[in-house]
């Protein structure tokens, strides 16, 4: 997994609440068996019309926004289906940070598995970032995971964010969960031994 330390980037504002994973990556694109190549389908039904042409009013089709690596959106971002194709699509499109007042649980977990940083900021701060970026396609902010801080160039916005220290550590160092857990393999084996002495797990 790619490590994340700090990022200075333009900001794409997606001023909607409850953006669900069916919108982030519609189901007709879930049939690929690879992890890559989903970016072209990101927000497909919002980005493209029936003929496959870009809809000019959608933010990620607009100059100044389509190359942004930071997406800012409303509360409960990533609700719905557990599909990890959602963070795969965002990352493949070039999004490394999503800022929102809250995230759905499974999507939130999935982001950390893929080096996409979900940043929770208070609703009013998020709204200000959305306003600034809507007014100015060149608006940029810096997200510093080490310092757990977000700021813009004029320092009109300076906001600290919280993150589980362990998750932050893994993101900063690009650590893979499976490798970490396999370091605890002896614990797993002894847990299994103990369980089997008490009747064990019912095999499937």
């Amino acid at each position, binding site marked *: 997994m790619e490590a994340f330390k700090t990022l200075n980037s333009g900001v794409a504002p997606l001023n909607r609440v*409850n953006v669900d994973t069916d919108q982030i990556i519609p189901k007709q694109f879930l049939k690929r068996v*690879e992890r890559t190549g989903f970016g072209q389908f990101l927000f497909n039904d919002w980005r493209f019309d029936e003929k496959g042409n870009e809809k000019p009013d959608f933010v990620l089709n607009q100059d100044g926004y389509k190359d942004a690596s930071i997406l800012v959106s*409303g509360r409960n971002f990533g609700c719905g289906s557990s599909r990890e194709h959602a963070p795969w699509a965002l990352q493949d499109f070039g999004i490394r940070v999503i800022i929102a007042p809250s995230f759905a649980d499974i999507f939130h977990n999935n982001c950390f*598995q893929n080096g996409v940083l979900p940043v929770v900021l208070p609703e009013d701060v998020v709204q200000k970032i959305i306003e600034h970026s809507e007014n100015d396609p060149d608006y940029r902010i810096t997200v510093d995971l080490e310092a757990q801080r977000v700021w813009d160039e004029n320092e009109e916005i300076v906001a600290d964010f919280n993150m589980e220290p*362990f998750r932050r550590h893994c993101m900063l160092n690009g650590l893979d969960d*499976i490798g970490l*857990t396999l370091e605890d393999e002896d614990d*797993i084996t002894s847990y299994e031994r103990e369980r089997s002495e008490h009747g064990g797990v*019912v095999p499937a």
Partner: protein
Amino acid sequence: MAPRTMFEKIWDTHVVKSEEGKPTVLYVDLHLVHEVTSPQAFDGLRMAGRSVRRTDLTVAVADHNTPTWDLSLPITDPIAQQQLDELSKNCDEFGVTLYDRFSPLQGIVHVIGPEQGYTQPGKTIVCGDSHTSTHGAFGAFAMGIGTSEVEHVLATQTLRQFKPKTMEVRVDGKLSPGVTAKDVVLGIIGKIGIGGATGHVIEYTGEAIRTLSMEGRMTVCNMSIEAGARAGMVAPDATTFEYMRGRENVPKGTDFDKAVAAWEELGTDEGAQYDQVVVLDAEELEPHVTWGTNPGMVAPITARIPIPQEYEDSGEQESVTRALDYMDLEPGMRIEDIEIDRVFIGSCTNSRIDDLRAAAKIAEGNKVDESVYAMVVPGSNAIKRQAEDEGLDKIFMQAGFDWREAGCSMCLGMNPDILKPGERCASTSNRNFEGRQGKGGRTHLVSPEMAAAAAIEGHFVDVRDWRG
């Protein structure tokens, strides 16, 4: 020991390793796998030279991509076929039990888990699918995970998890006739909102929950995720044990009695505290219909479509306006006046034998309106056979419903069963997101009874005073 909730008891017995500030390493008793969220996980194992740690605790099934047409007909979508082939190849290579499209026991993963007795009280159950919460109906801790986590469970039989909070959702009193488990859960989501239970495991309690069948409890737990919950659960009781008795993979004879004695201890202790408590009155619940583009946009059948300007929050106003625009509905119109084109009875929410019986009761002796195409998709081949033994298939077909093979079908439009742009569907599934059942399709979530009655009338009706 301090009194504990059911969730805490299950959590505690599955802790492999717990360190301050780090996610707990939690043991997984049952890992269910399907074709859409697993190929990249198996591929990850292969690349790292890892194996599946406990093939005996892992079960795979093909359900999302499988057409529900005649099994002798080929799959026409080459990419779907590739994903199904990939699952077969992976299960073969890694030694995982697979129910493929042709297995007599095939069905939707969340239907066959309980049906085949894999789902049991006290277990930790995961699947790369958000509706894994269904299995919590048996008093299991069951949750949906992403594909990286699927790979993690395959390799280690554990999951790294921060402990969620707990929420009691108590539904007091009795449900009125015509008000179903689906209406209970839609009512709950309408009350707490689609992010209302984020970070929490819900335990459903109260008289209205206790009197539900296992099928009804599964319907309620299934949609826990639609309120944002990590999982939903119901304490096991006599209803649970009767459902389980004699099923494949469930202990038999005295072992069953021993298991029941242990399962009876699982319930939340007197005096245990939940982080949040929500209370609903069953007697106030009516049949529900969703009108918008998420399951929280829901109202009783007797209500009218909301008026965006009446919402205080500007974000809410905007999303309601956007939803009504997508759904092509007029603010203030009566829900009963919404005309439909399609009816879908099926999905991991409402495709079990109880659901089919309830819908058949409405359909019997009636005819599907000529403006409507209606289909019934059993949740599993076993349910299909049982329904056919009971003659339900004939009732449906005589009424003009299409009777299909088992699968996820039109719940998510990953197989040939999809809505066309602009089509409006009364659906017993779980999500009414934009394009969920097909790009441009419009979904209204309802109970099987409400869906069947809407098929006959061509628009929504209140099943409580509908006589066909």
